[in-house]
């Protein structure tokens, strides 16, 4: 086998050295009846040439990758600067383990520290961890954390939070014995704050939410009292939008895919998690901190580890071990590459292009925007025709638009969600408008 480094002769020498005659002796501690039951999986080994070919054929079997995407809902077709993959392709980064030995992991640790800083800068929060699995599990952990802090056994969550987030939160909360209270949205598509109950540990909103609508967060935290304000966000939009931290959010989470990750059929993703310094001891996940070495030279190491499973075990703030480190590095290199100016520019492009499309939709017969509220780069269109027919028409014209079933399940009928990124040209948008209106 091409990846194993012992020759048959090496194996013989080693067997000899340990006083064994047959390699099967090494498995004598496995019950014989278990060994006897083993059945091969029926796979012939293949060469690298054949496997590359076979897997490439599967990749070619995804026409979606070549169509023009108007898909959003948490995952967006953003441009990734080419330098990102080059840095991630350095084996020192991608083949390393969690930096348990900081002295030979300063690359990973410095990047973690930068990532945390960037998340703080984007969200307006004081501390951030080194990543969670994805936005959905980050939110689920935020719910657990909020309830650990306030202990009321109940969390309120707006129903205009993305379905995939709500599903995961529901599963985690059920298992943890936390009751989830649904908060409806109002006619503008925004959280109906007056329906938030009082006796909850925290309230969860998303902004921009599942309809692309930006929630109005100003003054909410003051009204909530000690109920924790948990906000899920879209980090790229924060190049333009006032961050949750500016509205005194207590915990901010988000899906970081927009920051330099490929869509990758939905994984791996990047969970962002930020909070206030006062909650550090309740934070899930890893965090890098600055320190000094024996010579007093600055360096980085994992900090506040006593929260973590490998030390605190069943009393840890989370069970997370492997996280999304390399995705966090991608986000770090992405943000370093675009800089503050580029982040503003790309967010502005998304916003302007989405508004261009929305304006055209407004002028299209039989179409209107479902919600009259500010949005960033994504909005919901209500159609007179059955939405699925419109979706099909867009598909025939080469556009990817989501199945309307998901919006319908969320209570928005005959509607399509359209997302626009900096990758969409005016020409593509004009063609989409034609297709929406029934022209090709």
């Amino acid at each position, binding site marked *: *086998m091409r*990846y*194993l480094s012992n020759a048959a002769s090496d194996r013989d020498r080693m067997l000899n050295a340990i006083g064994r005659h047959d390699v099967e002796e090494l*498995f004598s501690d*496995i*019950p014989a*009846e*278990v060994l006897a*039951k*083993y*059945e091969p999986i*029926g796979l*012939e*080994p293949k*060469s690298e040439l054949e496997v590359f070919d076979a*897997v490439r054929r599967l*990749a070619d079997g995804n*026409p*979606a*990758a070549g169509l023009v995407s108007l898909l959003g809902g948490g995952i967006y*077709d953003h441009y990734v600067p080419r*330098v990102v993959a080059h*840095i991630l392709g350095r084996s*020192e980064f*991608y*083949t*390393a*383990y969690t930096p*348990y030995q900081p*002295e030979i992991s*300063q690359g990973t640790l410095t990047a973690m520290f930068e990532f*945390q800083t960037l998340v703080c800068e984007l969200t307006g929060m004081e501390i951030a961890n080194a990543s969670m*699995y994805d*936005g959905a599990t980050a939110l689920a952990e935020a719910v657990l954390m909020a309830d650990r802090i306030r202990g009321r056994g109940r969390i309120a969550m707006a129903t205009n939070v993305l379905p995939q987030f709500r*599903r995961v939160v*529901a599963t*985690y909360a059920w298992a943890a*014995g936390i009751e989830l209270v649904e908060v409806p949205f109002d006619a503008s598509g925004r959280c109906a704050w007056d329906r938030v109950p009082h006796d909850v540990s925290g309230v969860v909103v998303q902004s921009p939410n599942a309809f692309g609508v930006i929630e109005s967060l100003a003054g909410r935290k003051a009204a909530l009292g000690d109920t924790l304000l948990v906000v899920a966000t879209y980090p790229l939009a924060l190049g333009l939008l006032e961050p949750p931290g500016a509205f005194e959010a207590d915990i901010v989470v988000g899906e970081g895919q927009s920051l330099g990750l490929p*869509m990758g*059929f*939905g994984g*791996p993703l990047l969970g962002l998690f930020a909070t206030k310094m006062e909650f550090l001891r309740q934070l899930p996940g890893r965090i890098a901190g*600055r*320190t000094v*070495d024996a010579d007093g030279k600055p360096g980085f190491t994992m*900090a506040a580890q006593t929260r973590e499973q490998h030390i605190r075990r*069943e009393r*840890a703030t989370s*069970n*997370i071990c*492997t996280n999304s*480190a390399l*995705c966090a590095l991608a986000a*770090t290199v992405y943000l370093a590459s675009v800089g503050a*100016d*580029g982040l503003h520019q790309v967010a502005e*492009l998304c916003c302007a292009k989405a*508004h261009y499309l929305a304006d055209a939709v407004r002028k299209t017969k039989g179409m209107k925007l479902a919600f009259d509220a*500010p949005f*960033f780069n994504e909005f919901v269109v209500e159609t007179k025709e059955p939405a699925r027919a419109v979706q099909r028409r867009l598909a025939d014209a080469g556009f990817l638009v989501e199945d309307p079933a998901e919006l319908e399940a969320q209570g928005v009928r005959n509607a399509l969600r359209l997302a626009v990124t900096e990758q969409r040209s005016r020409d593509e948008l004009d063609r989409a408008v034609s297709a929406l209106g029934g022209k090709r």
Partner: protein
Amino acid sequence: MKTLFDHASREGVGGLFPACDVPAVALHDVLGAGLVRARAPRIPNLSEGEVARHYTALSKLNYGVDDGIYPLGSCTMKYNPKLNEDVARLPGFAGVHPHADADLTQGALGLLHELSELLRAISGMAAVTLQPVAGAHGELLGMFLFKRVLEQRGEPSRTRILLPDSAHGTNPASAAMAGFSVTEIRSNDRGTVDLDALRAELDSTVAGIMLTVPNTLGIFEENILDVTRAVHDAGGLCYFDGANLNSFIGRARPGDMGADVFHFNLHKTLSTPHGGGGPGAGAVAVSAPLVDYLPVPWIVESSGAVRLDWDHPKSVGSVHSFYGNFLVAVRAYAYLLQLGDSGLREVSENAVLNANYLQERLKKTYPLPYDRLCKHEFVLSGESLPNHVSTLDVAKRLIDYGVHPPTIYFPLIVHEALMIEPTETEGLASLDRFAEILETIAREAQENPDLVRGAPMRAPVRRLDQTKAARNPVLSYPFDEQAPTT
């Protein structure tokens, strides 16, 4: 270490994104005042060359598998084939949105389906989900499944999870996150579950047991069938932590040992890279009675077409935004195709042979508390080192010799533990070199202990002050510590 924020920002870099080809929007108008960001995030604007140099320099402060042996016990830091990286970057995979219609993503769905089937065959169990994205995530899902099945059986009072004292920290943490309490079962002097201690705990409050097979000492529970039978007889369920599957893959199946839930670490067993701490992938296999509870969506095939199936009312729900770490699954799939049946056997053969070879050689120098046939790893103790040299010192001294230290101070049941997993991809020459270095360090501990206690000397930094990091947490760049970035 210079950070990103220590670089001077400059105006007018640009060049990544096109000029706006639609009418510009007045942000305050379209968004409304109060929603527009008042203060830009402090991210320097740099040329591509400055960015490339900064991160290239950082990369060189790291040690990766391509730099040499990386014998972290329990982590299976084996070689990560380059083929895997290439297929995962194919635009036909990387560029697929998870919400695209199934008929436009048959390649991706088909791969996920095929991989599940292969993993199912490897595990000998009834069904597999690829949704969990890490080992601990698989454990958590497993605990959710336990909880749901017990709920359905009308046994919500089964709230205790039993755990050997050698268990990985994620095991108790996962159980707790799912609302279970944890009872530790002590190991016997052979390093395996003490059957009497286990039986004494088996009552009607027991939800089940979490076993690591082989365990974190690298020892296979010879009486695994007795253990799982006892738990089942008492009405409990059996979880198998599969982090160490490389030691028996292709020869034995958890499904034949009584597992109800088994998690794979694709990033260990199936060679996908660890990424400095992630992303991983943690497929979960279940026994027949648990199938209905698997998370939605299922990925099902019928008459050649693969689709997402949401219609499983008993399902525990979802544990991930989409279908797990797809691009990691792509890598694992490519690896499995290369291995085939014969390759699976070669993996376990080499993993176990390498570990036993090193164990036999090194036990002459470092005490081996559990001296018996091991599987893919073994645990030495640094407690007999002279001159107050600790296991930590040995680890740091290994760095000076240019190799990565093993896992240290875990499992907790071995004092001053050095947990060594050479992995199957290491060759004899590399093992011998590693052993020689450890032997040299033992000599140094005797003859020149300061050298060991003061290590590392030849790393990018010397030993880092963990106490200071804990006591005075600096967790993000202290912009105010100095003059503002220009």
